[in-house]
């Protein structure tokens, strides 16, 4: 749920990176963090286990610039991908304005991708959100790996609704900013639509 503050002339929006365990959600945020001008970003917070698996969430605040005199700020969150952290995922989805689904392109992770997508749909529905109606972008990550499934197959299974989609390799940063821009744009367009 976006927050518009007339006093400080700020608009804050929340974007959540969703996807199966080890698909690269945290890596996406880390890349954005390292490549963003220090003036535009806040501290990145990672609540992770000792083995660097996300335990609760990662958080990165970003300032994108001004629209009509209002500073636009995006709060990027990741969820813990591992199946048993479902309660935490539900909490993080609260008040979301846009979702990025990070799919793991590796063919052996197809099942995990599908399970996570179903889980996203269910958890959004609990908040009376429909995946097809909110700003939503799909990222096919790990395209650089030799065991990556063909794009058409991933698309057929994970994005039959034809949401904006991007190929990526979050380790090298390929596709990371394209994904972020697409979801941020979609969130702002959605706010514009809602205000009409």
């Amino acid at each position, binding site marked *: 749920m976006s927050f518009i503050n007339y006093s400080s002339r700020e608009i804050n929006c929340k974007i959540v990176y969703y996807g199966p365990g080890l698909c690269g959600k945290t890596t996406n945020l880390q890349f954005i963090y390292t490549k963003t001008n220090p003036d535009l970003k806040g501290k990145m917070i990672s609540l992770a286990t000792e083995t660097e698996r996300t335990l609760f969430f990662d*958080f990165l605040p970003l300032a994108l610039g001004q629209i009509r005199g209002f500073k636009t700020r995006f709060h990027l969150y990741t969820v813990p991908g591992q199946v048993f952290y479902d309660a935490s995922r539900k909490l993080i989805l*609260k008040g979301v304005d846009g979702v990025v689904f990070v799919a793991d392109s590796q063919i052996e992770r197809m099942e995990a991708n599908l399970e996570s997508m179903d889980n996203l749909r269910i958890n959004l529905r609990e908040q009376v959100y429909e995946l097809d109606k909110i700003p939503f972008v799909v990222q096919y990550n790990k395209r650089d790996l030799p065991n990556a499934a063909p794009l058409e197959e991933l698309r057929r299974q994970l994005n039959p609704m034809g949401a904006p989609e991007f190929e990526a390799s979050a380790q090298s940063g390929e596709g990371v900013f394209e994904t972020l821009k697409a979801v941020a744009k979609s969130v702002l367009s959605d706010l514009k639509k809602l205000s009409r």
Partner: protein
Amino acid sequence: MFDTQLVMYEEDHKRVLHVIGRLVRDANAKGVFVVDKNGQLIAEAGEVRGIDTTSLASLTAGSIAATGGLAKIIGEEDFPVHFHQGARDNLHITLVAKRMILVVVFDDRSSLGLVRLRVKKAGTELAKVFEEIQKKAEADQATGNSSASPFSEITDDDIDNLFAD
């Protein structure tokens, strides 16, 4: 619970600042923050220099969400009051109007008892302010009053320009 977008006008923000400014003084607190349950910082007062307020807001919301989940597991609706004791500084966290979180940072110039007492009064006042904001938002939504959002004016070009690099 708010289902509508949160829009805060200057006069509402001033009212919130007035209440928490007084709370800082009455409770001898170092700082007071109002955070919404989604992790957005709404207002701050007191000695907040050097505190990463954006992170504070996000982690407070995370903590409240997690303990709220715990409450439900044991059959409670919520844990409305939290207290974290540190070596120097302490945190007192309360839920206000179901959606807002009031965070008080204090040290040994104050006491838990005093903070609790003052928070009670300030919490009631803040709840009233947020109820009114909510009513206003609902009325705007019902009448289709788009002046509530600066987005009614923006164009696709404005959005594109944000990403021009």
